[in-house]
């Protein structure tokens, strides 16, 4: 098991290196330059543009820029400088990472907690009216983009006279010290993004769970367990669900990169302080090291997610471990 993990981790390094080179190339292939955005400003002259480009090292050939960045990363874990924020990339990401993980975690938990029981229920009651309704709602959730769902919820809240229409806190709680009132205010805001993003995941997860549950229910060992007279509860939870959940574990691993890219639009619409809009901004403005670092993070999370789900699978399913 240990050598399995070690091999996987070592294999990630060349992959990441190649990904970083490709990402940098793609960023560089975009037309225009970082300083373009300033051109309409009367305070901005060509001399200033040249000075900024020189300060940021943009006057050097792209290959030099790339290796300079890479050297920084390798030697002292310096991921470069954010042109837009005038600060090292790492500190900017660090400030937003907490909220990003927090919101993503709640969303993930929410969609799993809702989707898995529903998936199991619909698998066991395939033709009931309840299943039909759940299925319909699931499709609806899948069809409505998360940002639209968020806008609809916001419109509804506004209509009902609410003030929690964006952000994570009411204005007066944003920089207040932690207290119960602040926690309540947070929860009062948090349910909108969690519901809007979570609903989209629910439908997919639910269908997956249902399909794999149906698959498992037809298996010999479930029939055997039933024939042996095991209680239905035990059959479902001990034998069927544990096996049916395997494919979902792989799915969970793949969902890690959505931490960064999955919530761009909804973060903009709901004004959430997450990393998503940062990626969008850095790509649009050619804030190259920020964009590169975020894309690398995304790739790294994907690899880590894969690794984690492989480990989890190995734990849940002995066949993977001994294969």
């Amino acid at each position, binding site marked *: 098991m240990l050598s399995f993990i070690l091999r996987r981790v070592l294999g990630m390094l060349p992959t990441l290196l190649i990904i970083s080179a490709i990402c940098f190339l793609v960023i560089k292939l975009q037309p225009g330059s970082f300083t*373009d955005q300033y051109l309409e400003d009367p305070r901005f002259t060509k001399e200033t543009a040249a000075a900024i480009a020189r300060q940021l090292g943009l006057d050097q050939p792209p290959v030099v820029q790339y290796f300079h960045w890479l050297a920084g990363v390798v030697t002292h874990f310096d991921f470069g400088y954010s042109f837009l924020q005038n*600060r090292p990339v790492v500190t900017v990401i660090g400030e937003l990472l907490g909220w990003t993980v927090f919101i993503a975690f709640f969303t993930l938990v929410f969609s799993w907690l809702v989707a898995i029981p529903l998936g199991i229920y619909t698998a066991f009651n395939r033709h009931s009216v309840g299943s039909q309704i759940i299925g319909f709602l699931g499709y609806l959730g899948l069809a409505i983009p998360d940002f639209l769902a968020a806008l609809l919820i916001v419109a509804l809240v506004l209509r009902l006279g609410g003030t929690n229409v964006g952000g994570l806190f009411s204005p007066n709680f944003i920089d207040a010290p932690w207290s119960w009132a602040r926690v309540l205010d947070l929860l009062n805001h948090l349910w909108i993004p969690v519901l809007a993003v979570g609903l989209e995941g629910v439908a997919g997860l639910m269908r997956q769970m249902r399909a794999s549950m149906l698959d498992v229910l037809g298996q010999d060992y479930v029939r055997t367990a039933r024939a042996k007279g095991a209680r239905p509860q035990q059959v479902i939870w001990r034998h069927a669900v544990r096996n049916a959940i395997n494919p979902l574990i792989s799915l969970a691993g793949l969902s890690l990169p959505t931490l960064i890219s999955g919530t761009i639009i909804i973060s903009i619409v709901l004004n959430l302080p997450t990393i998503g809009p940062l990626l969008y901004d850095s790509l649009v403005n050619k804030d190259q090291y920020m964009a590169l670092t975020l894309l690398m993070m995304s790739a790294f999370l994907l690899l880590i997610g894969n690794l984690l789900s492989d480990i989890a699978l190995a734990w849940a399913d002995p066949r993977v471990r001994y294969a």
Partner: protein
Amino acid sequence: MRHKGILALTLLLAATLSTAAAAPKKVSGYESLGVVAGKSGGNLTLALGDSPQSLNYYGAIDNNLGLISQQLFDTLVEFNYATYKLEPALAESWTVSPDGKVYTFKLRQGVKWSDGEDFTADDVAFTFDQIVENPEARAGDAETFSQGGKKIPFDVVDKYTIKVTLQKPTPAFLLQLRASFIMPKHKLLKYSVAGGAKPADINNAWPTNVAPSEVVGTGPFKLASYTTGQKVSLVRNPNYWKVDAKGTKLPYLDSLDFLIIRDPQAQVAQFLAGNIDQLNITGAQFPDLKQKEVSGAPFKVIRSTALFGSPPFLAFNFDAKDAALAKVFSDLRFRDAMQSALNRQRMIDTVYNGLASLPGHGVAPANKAFYVNTKSSLGDFDLKAAGAALDAMGLKDTDGDGVRNIAKGKNLEFDLTYGTDSSVYPALATIIQNDFKQIGVKVNLQGILAKNLLSTGLSGNYEAILHAFGDQPDPELRRPIWEPGGALYYWHRSLQPANDGGTPNIAKMFPWEKEIYNIFETAAVTPDAGQRKALYTRWQLLFAHNLPVIPLLKPENIGAVSNKYGNYIYNLGVIPGYNPVPLIYVK
């Protein structure tokens, strides 16, 4: 003996006067704008379109940073809120030598930085010499504040006197000063060359995670806290140097918050929810909010004519890659014909919901100091006349396909470049395309990101373009745009000088361009206000008649403000030297 007495009395009087002159600035005379005496206290929350990139105004060119800086720092001179005339601010008075070259500023005495230090001439000299004129400062202004390749010297005469010596008369100099916030030497010295740092180090001062007590200004507010991506909080600067007509200290507000909200719709939602108290909106958002106001919502939607703000125009590339098109585009008869095919009223009504008016030529109609009425030159919307004018030029449809021909087998058709991600450009482009089609001119729409419009224009890689440049109170401030051969005069790029800052290619100018060029060169060094006005009047008439670009319309400013507040004057956004927020009070 008697003489001595008089002398003593005079001295005493002079001393009294000079202490009286050191009093804080009294802000009064805005009754016409609805300003009344307010009361102290309360909070105002505004929206900020994105996180500020730094807290050092000169470290990044960034509108959001500008909005915050405006509340933290002051300039030497500022605008009157009603007339846009220049008034004393940190400089209490000034004299200009008869030849227009030496400016002597008497600074306001008794002004303190928000940390209690005295504001002196050293701060002013430091700000210009070490920051504004530092070519490595990303948001500095070294270009404007240098003459003949040298920095303009700001000399400290005494603790409260600054002398500036120019190489040539520069009548717009005071207006340029209006755009430079004065920074505290005692806080920023260590980031400057004088303090032993490298020139580019100034950009690293006051990053967004700086301790709020480090950011020190003379402005109405001081920084209290910044929560990444969410909120910037300011509190009243108790040392602020302005009082209202009754002598009450300004600002009235205890605190001013900026909520960081990127999405315009989300801003409106937060405004409707009461989390934001004032918001600038667009013509497209106007009907919805106005309707809510009429049906009793607790806010007002206010429209005001605009001096600042970008009027859209249609420009044809005189140097288009297609030589036949370039020839047609440089022909005034063609541009005149195209102007009469522009349905300005329809654009104003449908695209701006009526919240726009006819434009000036380089100067906003609201600009009392310089505007000349050129409305008659805008012509009327008349497709028949436009068609006839094109016929007269010999541009006729010879092959019967409904499109006029430039030459045999070659249609009169061109690409119109416009910004797709804007609420107005796509609609404007479509109206133009439709109307031009009716007179046999084929327009192919070429959409790009609005933020790339300028760089596309400057690259010369377009045939016709929809774009907008801002109006300013003094044409001198817009010289790079409207002076033929100027850095932004991109519809006739072949005039650009071979080297930056060199003399443009005068031989290639049309006679009227040459005249405009001479006007700008002369007006820039003419100290006499009346003569300058006459020169710029001539320029506007030449512009209106020869149409280097065709201005379309001038949008109005629309703001929405909660009924809780009094003394609201339209929030212009980042206009240094124009900050009416200290007058706002909670009713």
